[in-house]
């Protein structure tokens, strides 16, 4: 039965995480933007927390454990995660990306690692290296190679735009084991820091999320043990493996959309505060053409934020309910990435000089939020995915 009223449990998660964001991230937000790449030592307290872990196997017998009062409805883990990420990004997006042991690489390891690999790497901080200078959105065309030589893989290539490139312990590197096999030949490998031939080449200077150390790796005859491959080394004729990797994006796109929700809401909350300080009361009742342009703009932004959030929550909720959400995840990200960018720009506009000055965070949010329309598939790629789904076209028909 349709019900979009937040449950008590969802409100608890939201309030709890907002408290964390407010007390731990906001106070250091400007500092780590000014001091690009400096390691945010305050986040070390998160190291001991298991932010990402494998879901425990469900108990088959006995009743479900429910420590809460009877009747309390717990949200699924993906929905809970979108709420958490929105709140944390309301605090600071760059710092959220810098939470120890919670990188994309960790997500990949949790998804496909063997028990032995989990044992060895499960407690390490893992970055994810996919993009190359010549392969951005077209990640199927990567050229980094992995060749098996006895009991070792030998990796060669260059990886760019790696999140947490410096502060991570290990990296999950995408490489092809057989270029002629195309996407079917692409595999991922765990490379530990300090391996000979594996070098952090440089850190990028960016528009936003400056607190995060985005970097470039160079792999020059880097040798790793044969066991460091994630998933099967076998090159199958089909592209199922690659598609499987792409499917993990259906899980992470709602999370990126949530990042936009958080930053966007931060900008809107600040703008609302200033509007109300100036004596304007937002009453949500008058004909929107009978209020000032500033108020109408604000209402429209609020409505858009609500639209972004509901599309995002739907895609996460579908995952929790075991429904295929490829279309909905891309819808959420397409809408949230773009609209979040526009709203944060507009907030700066409405704030006037306060929106331009580095005495406030609005200008930073405008820079930070832009990444959500870019990473994990640009807005344009999301539109392509949505359109192909809706029109039932293949990637050959709709390029």
């Amino acid at each position, binding site marked *: 039965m349709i019900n979009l009223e937040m449950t008590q449990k969802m409100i608890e998660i939201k309030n709890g995480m907002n408290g964390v964001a407010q007390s731990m991230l906001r106070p250091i937000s400007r500092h780590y933007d000014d001091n690009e790449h400096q390691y945010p030592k305050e986040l070390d307290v998160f190291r001991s927390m298991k932010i990402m872990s494998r879901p425990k196997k469900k108990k088959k017998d006995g009743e479900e454990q429910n420590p809460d009062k009877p009747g309390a409805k717990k*949200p699924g883990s993906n929905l809970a995660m979108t709420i958490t990420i929105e709140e944390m990004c309301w605090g600071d997006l760059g710092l959220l990306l810098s939470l120890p042991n919670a990188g994309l690489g960790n997500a990949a390891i949790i998804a496909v690692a063997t028990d032995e690999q989990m044992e060895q790497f499960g407690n390490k901080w893992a970055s994810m290296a996919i993009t190359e200078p010549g392969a951005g959105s077209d990640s199927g065309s990567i050229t980094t190679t992995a060749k098996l030589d006895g009991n070792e893989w030998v990796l060669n290539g260059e990886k760019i735009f790696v999140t947490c490139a410096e502060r991570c312990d290990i990296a999950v590197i995408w490489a092809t084991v057989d270029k002629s096999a195309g996407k079917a030949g692409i595999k991922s490998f765990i490379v530990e820091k300090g391996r000979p031939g594996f070098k952090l080449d440089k850190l990028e200077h960016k528009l936003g999320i400056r607190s995060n150390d985005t970097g470039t790796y160079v792999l020059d005859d880097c040798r790793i043990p044969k066991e460091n491959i994630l998933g099967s080394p076998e090159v199958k004729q089909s592209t199922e493996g690659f598609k499987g990797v792409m499917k993990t994006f259906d899980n992470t796109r709602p999370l990126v959309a949530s990042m936009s929700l958080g930053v966007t809401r931060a900008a809107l909350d600040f703008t609302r505060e200033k509007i109300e300080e100036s004596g304007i009361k937002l009453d949500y009742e008058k004909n*929107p053409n009978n209020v000032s342009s500033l108020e109408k703009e604000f209402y429209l932004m609020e409505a858009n934020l609500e639209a972004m959030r*509901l599309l995002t929550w739907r895609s996460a909720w579908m995952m929790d309910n075991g429904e295929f959400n490829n279309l909905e995840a891309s*819808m959420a990200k397409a809408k949230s990435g773009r609209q979040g960018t526009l709203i944060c720009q507009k907030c700066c506009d409405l704030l006037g000089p306060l929106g331009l000055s580095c005495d406030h965070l609005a200008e930073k949010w405008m820079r930070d939020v832009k990444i959500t329309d870019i990473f994990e598939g640009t807005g344009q790629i999301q*539109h392509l995915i949505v359109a192909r789904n809706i029109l039932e*076209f293949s990637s050959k028909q709709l390029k």
Partner: protein
Amino acid sequence: MEEKEFSFRMSEEQRTMKETVARLVKDVVAENAHDMDEKKAIPPAFIQKVWELGATVSVVPEEYGGYGMEHSPIMNTIILEELAYGDMALAIAATLPSLFMYPILDGGTDDQKKKYLPPYCGASYKPCTVAINEPRFKFDPVSMETKAEKRGGTYVLNGKKCFVPMAKDSAHLLIAAATGGTNDLFIIAKENPGLKIGDREKNLGAYALDTYPVILENCEVPAGDRLGGDQGCNYGTFLQKTRVALSAIGTGVSRASFEYARDYARERVQFGEPIAFRQSIAFMIAEMAYEVDAMRLMTWKAASALEAGRDAKREAYLAKLYAGEMTMKITDYGVQILGGHGYIRDHPVERYYRNGRGIAILEGMTIV
């Protein structure tokens, strides 16, 4: 009471109702919407078919002639979206008795319920209507120029209303007016000598729906016909419910335009391939798809708040604002994707575009 689960999934009952209305729309309206628009009339048999679903009467308590089922704003948004997907004029006309009856159900006195509900709970559809909009620049449903002044045991109403659906055939009207500091609704019989119904209006959209101006000149209404009696009614909640309903209608009209344009773009061949092979068209269609969904979700969210008995002022306002803006955008895209063909009345996107303009402008035309 046990807390409801947060869910995007329709219940069995909701799904069944959606499918039933969709089938009715497909069988009865789909082929005829164009004709209804051209002839500027809805065949009464179509309206009767919708009436026979029983959605309106079902929520009226048995003592007033109904079936005493639970009143569900969410269910009503589902019904309205499906009806408006078929035709916006039909959606408003066929559910019009709800617009008159729900406010009486929610806030009427016992006497008002006894007097005004049973006559409209019959097996045959009988129009009764509501007058909110006023024919003036800067109209605002929360600062009306139609005034009600209390003189002894009666209220005297003066002012002008417009877009009053089916006023000519309605025996009763619920009319909104400002009374001192509050906004009120008054139940007025058509025969009231102070009430004049003007000539049928000619509007941009919803050609098939007959709407009228209503003029109130020293219209005397017994104090007992002020909705809610001495206490008055909760006008704010009434407005919320009509705003959520208009959002649902916007969603239906937009979905119709989106689906038509999507199918057209797949089939229309130019430069040797379907026009939807081009990103400029495909991306418009993608945007239409997620905005229709966003509109529906915002409608559901506001309806969820209403269903929980919570004040939905903010949610309803934002849902209507969003639906108003997006319906214009999406129905515009619908015409644009068809190009010159979209401008020709043979294709329904032309009608959707005209109809869709009303979502942002209208108030109090339909209710959940």
